[in-house]
C-alpha cells in the first residue's frame, strides 16, 4: 500500500494504472526496503508525506515512469541525435583539433633556448614596456628552473590556438550583432548562458560527442567559454562609436564596407582588444579545468595534486598558473594601451 493509492483511486485511474504490470528494475530505495524486510510502505504520518514525485507516484501506479526512466530517456534521446550531430560537428571542428595538436608539437619541438628569448622579444615588441618584458623573462626562467617549462608551454600553446579561434569567430559574430538588433536580442541569452553555466556542465555532452582522447574536445570547451567577452565587446564597441562620426561617414558617401573598415572597427578597437584580453584570461581559467578531459599543461599537475593529495605539486603548479595569468594580462594590457595611445 503506497502513499498515493488513495489519490489514484479518487481520480479513477486505477484501471489505467493496472493495465501493465510493474516493470523495470527496482530502485535503490525499494531494494533497501526489501533488505530491511519491509514489503509494504508503512503508513506515513502527515509530516513525512513524500512529494508526489515520479518515484512516489510510480509506487501507486506503475504506468507512471520513474525518475531513472526519465534520465534514461534523455540519455537515449541524446545518443539518438549524437550520430547526426557528429556528422555536422566533426568536419567543422576537425581543423581545431589539427591546430591544437600541431601547435602543441611545434611549441614543444622548439628548444627552450630559442623559445624563451622569442617570447621575451614578442613581449617587448608588443608592449614596449621594460617592466612587462622583465616580468615575462623572469617568469619563464623561473618556471624552467623548477622544471615546469614544458607544462607551461603546453598551456600557452592551447591558449594561443583557442584565442585565435575565439577572435576569428567572435569578432565577425560581434560585428553581425552590432548591425542587427534582432540578432543581438537572440544572442545575448546564449552568451549569458555560456558564461554562467558551470564549466563542468558543458563538458558532459561534449564527452559523449567526441572521444576524450581527441584534443578538439577540450578545444571546443575552452572556446565556448572564452569566446563570450570578445563577442560582447566587439558588439558594444561598434555600437558605442560616436553617432556624429558615423553620420559624417554617411554624409561623405562611404559604403557600409568602408564605414566598417575605416571607421567602426578602428574606433571600436580598444574595446575589441579589451575583449581579447578577457578571452585570454578565460581560456587560461578553462584550460586548467579542461585537464579533466585530457588537456595537457599545468592543469594536469594541479589535478595530480588533488587526486594524489600531493600538496606541494598542486601549490607550485597553481603558482605557475598565477604567474602565467599575470604575465598574459600585463602584456596584453600594455599592448592595448599602446593602441589607445597611438592615433588618438
Amino acid at each position: 500500500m503506497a502513499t498515493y493509492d488513495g489519490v489514484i483511486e479518487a481520480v479513477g485511474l486505477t484501471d489505467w494504472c493496472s493495465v501493465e504490470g510493474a516493470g523495470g528494475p527496482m530502485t535503490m530505495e525499494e531494494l533497501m526496503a526489501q533488505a530491511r524486510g519491509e514489503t509494504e510502505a508503512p503508513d506515513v504520518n502527515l509530516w513525512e508525506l513524500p512529494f508526489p514525485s515520479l518515484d512516489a507516484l510510480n509506487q501507486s501506479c506503475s504506468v507512471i515512469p520513474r525518475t531513472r526512466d526519465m534520465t534514461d530517456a534523455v540519455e537515449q534521446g541524446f545518443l539518438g541525435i549524437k550520430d547526426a550531430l557528429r556528422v555536422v560537428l566533426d568536419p567543422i571542428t576537425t581543423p581545431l583539433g589539427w591546430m591544437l595538436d600541431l601547435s602543441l608539437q611545434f611549441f614543444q619541438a622548439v628548444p627552450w633556448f630559442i623559445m624563451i628569448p622569442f617570447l621575451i622579444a614578442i613581449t617587448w615588441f608588443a608592449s614596449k614596456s621594460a617592466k612587462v618584458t622583465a616580468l615575462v623573462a623572469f617568469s619563464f626562467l623561473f618556471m624552467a628552473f623548477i622544471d615546469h617549462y614544458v607544462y607551461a608551454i603546453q598551456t600557452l600553446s592551447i591558449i594561443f590556438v583557442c584565442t585565435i579561434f575565439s577572435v576569428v569567430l567572435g569578432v565577425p559574430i560581434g560585428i553581425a550583432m552590432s548591425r542587427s538588433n534582432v540578432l543581438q536580442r537572440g544572442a545575448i541569452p546564449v552568451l549569458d548562458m555560456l558564461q554562467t553555466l558551470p564549466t563542468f556542465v558543458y563538458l558532459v555532452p561534449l564527452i559523449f560527442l567526441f572521444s576524450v582522447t581527441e584534443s578538439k574536445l577540450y578545444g571546443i570547451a575552452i572556446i565556448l567559454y572564452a569566446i563570450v567577452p570578445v563577442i560582447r565587446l566587439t558588439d558594444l564597441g561598434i555600437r558605442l562609436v560616436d553617432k556624429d562620426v558615423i553620420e559624417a561617414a554617411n554624409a561623405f558617401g562611404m559604403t557600409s564596407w568602408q564605414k566598417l573598415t575605416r571607421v567602426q572597427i578602428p574606433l571600436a578597437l580598444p574595446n575589441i582588444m579589451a575583449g581579447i584580453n578577457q578571452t585570454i584570461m578565460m581560456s587560461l581559467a578553462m584550460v586548467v579545468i579542461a585537464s579533466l578531459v585530457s588537456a595537457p599543461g599545468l592543469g594536469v599537475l594541479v589535478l595530480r595534486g588533488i587526486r594524489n593529495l600531493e600538496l606541494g605539486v598542486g601549490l607550485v603548479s597553481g603558482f605557475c598558473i598565477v604567474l602565467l595569468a599575470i604575465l598574459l594580462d600585463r602584456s596584453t594590457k600594455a599592448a592595448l594601451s599602446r593602441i589607445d595611445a597611438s592615433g588618438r
Partner: protein
Amino acid sequence: MKQKKPVKISIRKLYKIFGSDPKSALEHVKAGVGKPDLLKRYGHVLGLQDINVDMRDGEITVIMGLSGSGKSTLIRHLNRLIEPTDGKVEVDGEDVLAYGEKKLRDLRRSKMSMVFQKFALLPHRTVLENTTMPRRVRGEGGQATEDDGTKWLDRVGLHGYGGHYPNQLSGGMQQRVGIARALASDSPIMLMDEAFSALDPLIRTDMQDLLLELQKELHKTIVFITHDLDEALKLADHLVILKDGRVVQQGEPQEILLHPNDPYIVDFISDINRARVLRVRSIMEETDREGDGLAGEVDADQNLESVIAISGGDTNLHYRVMSGGQQVGLLHMKDLVRALVPVDAQDASKRVSAA
C-alpha cells in the same frame, strides 16, 4: 536690382513626421493639426511641414530657428540622411528622392559636402588624412590627393598641422579641419549644420570671416544653419526662419528686418543693433533724380551706423547714394531714423506681410 541667380536646390511641399505611422499622421497634419496636438493626440512628432524653399547657386542660404524648430532635420533631407514623409527635393533639376543607392552615394561624394556642429572628425586619423577623406572615399589617392589636402589646410589657416591628430587641436582649429574636409571634396554645395555654434564668440567671428572670404572666391552654394540672429544676418543672402517645423518668413535679411511678418520674428529681432545691421540700400529712396540740398555721398552697402557718424546726428540732411560709381538713390535722414525704431509686436501698421 541684382540679377537673380539660378536655383540650385529646390524644396517643395516637404513634410517630415517622426513616429510609427507617419503616413496616416500626415493626413492629420494636412488637415490642420499642429505640432503640439499631433504629439498629444496621435503620438507623432511633427518635424517639418509644408516647406518650400529655393536655394540659389553661389548664395548662402541661412536657415534660422530656435532649438527644436527642425533645422537639422531640414538640412539632412538635402543629402537624404533623413528620408521625407512627403514632398520633393530637387538638386540641379533632378529629383533626389528618386535616386537609387548608387546615385545617392555619388551625390554625397561629389556634389554635397557637410560640416558638423561637433566637427565629427575621425579621431584615429591625422588632420591631413581627415582632409583627404572625401577623396579617398571616392577611390582617389596618391600624391595629388595629399597635395590637394595640404592646399586646403593652408587655405583655412592650418599650415603645418597636417600631421597632428584632431584632439591635439582646439575647437576652432578642429572646425577649420571640418571646413577643409568639406572643401577638399570639391563639391559645389556645402551643408553646414550649426558649424560655428560650439565655438567661443571671438573664434566664431573669425570663422564667419573665413567663410565669407572663402565664399568670395569659391562661390559655393552654402546652406548654413544657425540659431544666432547676428550670425544669420552677417552671412545670409537668403534667410529662412523656421518655427515648429514651419517656415514663418523667408527672404532678403534686410527685408525681414524691416518688415517682419510674425510676432515670433519680432521677438527674435528686438534685441539687435539695427543701425549696424541695416544698410543704406534697404531704406533709400530708389531714384536717379538729382536731389537738392545734398550733404554728400554715401555708399549703398554702408550700414546706418556709419552714416549717422558722418551726419553728426543731424536728421535734416539728405545724401546721394552711390554704388559702383553711379547714383542709385537718395537717402533721407528722416527715413533712417524711422528705420531704427524697433518694430513693436503690437504695432500692426508695420507688420505688413512681406510678399
